[in-house]
């Protein structure tokens, strides 16, 4: 299996001198194609920093990151934006949907940005497979939290990224819907062979992951498989 995300000796510090805080300490981490990895940790453990660095939203103080074979660390913001757009699907806490676009227009936006011409057959089958085809004409405000996250997952998958980054995707959901969303993410990761990283603080959500890591004081510790 191909390595999708490779982190080599990633260090991230904020501030200098007395106020210096080390958020990430020498992280070495790899996620392969089709792998669903959960990262769990208390707030302030460096989870968000980890995610923003793997997503290319900020650069590490030192170390190297490769996304699908391309170095992220040396690119400028514009190039990083393009790489994010192509290779990474984000699923965010509340929702990564644009509030003033109907569900199907969320995908038109992607097409507009890429200037891609294509009909809707691929989109329709994606929406059907996630059971949200009937929501096409609705605005995000008219969807339930679970439906919104399904649309967000579809939005993340639509670009066919190699890496899916999910930041607390179940935070705004009740337990039942939260399980649904996580199971859907795992299913898509396996079926579509997407490397997926889910960051969460909810222990219950991680049991079906392929691998589980603990983020503690800026370090990732892999948990031995329990099953």
């Amino acid at each position, binding site marked *: 299996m191909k390595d999708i995300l490779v982190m080599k000796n990633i260090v991230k510090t904020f501030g200098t001198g007395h106020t210096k805080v080390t958020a990430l300490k020498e992280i070495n981490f790899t996620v392969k194609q089709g792998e669903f990895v959960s990262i769990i940790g208390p707030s302030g453990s460096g*989870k*968000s920093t980890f*995610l*923003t660095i793997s*997503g290319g*939203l*900020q650069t590490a103080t030192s170390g190297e990151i490769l996304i699908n074979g391309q170095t992220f660390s040396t690119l400028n913001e*514009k190039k990083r*934006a*393009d*790489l*994010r*757009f*192509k290779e*990474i699907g*984000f699923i*965010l*806490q509340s929702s*990564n949907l*644009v*509030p*003033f*676009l109907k569900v199907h*227009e969320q995908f*038109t*936006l992607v097409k*507009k*940005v890429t200037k891609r011409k294509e009909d809707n057959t691929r989109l329709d089958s994606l929406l059907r497979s996630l059971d949200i085809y009937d929501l096409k004409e609705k*605005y995000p405000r008219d969807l339930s939290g679970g439906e919104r996250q399904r649309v967000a997952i579809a939005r993340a998958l639509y670009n066919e990224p190699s890496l899916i980054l999910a*930041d607390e995707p179940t935070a705004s959901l009740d337990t039942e819907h939260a399980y649904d969303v996580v199971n859907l993410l795992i299913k898509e990761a396996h079926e579509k062979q997407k490397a997926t990283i889910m960051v969460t603080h909810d222990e219950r959500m991680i049991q079906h992951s392929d691998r589980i890591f603990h983020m503690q004081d800026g370090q990732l510790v892999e948990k031995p498989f329990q099953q």
Partner: protein
Amino acid sequence: MFLAIKEMRYAKLRYGLIIGMMLLIAYVVFMLSGLARGLAEEFKKGVEDWQAQEIILSQEANKTLTASQLTMDDFDQITANQKAPIGIYNGAIKGTEQNVTVFGTTEKAFLLPTLIKGTRFKQNNEIIIPENLAKDGYHIGDTIKIGSYPEALTIVGITSENYYTVTPVIYTNLETWTQLKFGDQPLNNQPINAVITKENTQLPSTNEKMTSLTTPELIENIPGYSAQNLTLDAMIYFLFVVATAVVGIFMYVITLQKTAIFGVMKAQGIRNSFLANSLIAQAFIVGVIGVGLAILLAFGTSLVLPDAMPFAIIWSQWALYSGLLISVAIIGGLFSIRTVTKVDPITAIGG
């Protein structure tokens, strides 16, 4: 354009308000322009219609027609392919409160306006009046009295609308005009105010009391004309500044409210330029719709304005103002671009 239109459709009220502001400002611009041009037109039409090459006044007249004093002797010394003497008298029609401008000239003068009815004046005490005066109930054959001149003047012809310094223009011959202006005072030499010429004009080198002007120069020096235009134009220019500020402020507030969603879109890898274009597109749409509606509204208003409020639509000027208004709307939108580019995509994650 896609994001811009979809968002405006979603937030109809919000963008409706900005368009409403734009509409009101543009409406005032077009109304002021129409009224300014209408008034200007009534100031100068009579003179502009002469289509003169040069207007010759006396040197000390300070470029003002009424202040100029020449005689027919001066007239005879000027050579030109076409020339006509002009005398000007401002008076009121007896029994009404209608002020008029009376121009005295020769029967064959090239500058006489085309008649739409009747004939030119041939004898003393015959006059031709413009349509805008005839509308008050004057017909060919009617007589009127002007000022303190005791004799009745007979209307023999009617020209199309004509104004000078916002009063209707009446033409008559020099003798009648002299009677109107000077009464029975003994005069050595037939006085006139100016000589109007066309083509190959030459002033006598021996006569230094004369100076020549072009039509625009003469119009610029009509007392009150420049001051009035400057005032109205200044108001219009100020409105462009107001439009920039209003659109700028509205767009800025809306942009601030959207920083979270901009963060998310940027995290997803949508470029700054894409978001900035959408912002500019919105400002453009606001400008176009606001200006379009304002033109319709101003045009509609012009149809119901009373005659006392002259209104002239100069389409080329309205086109220019439309372009300027849309441009200033876009400039207003530009203020917010920095805010968009400053949003850090990192805000989309964690919290």
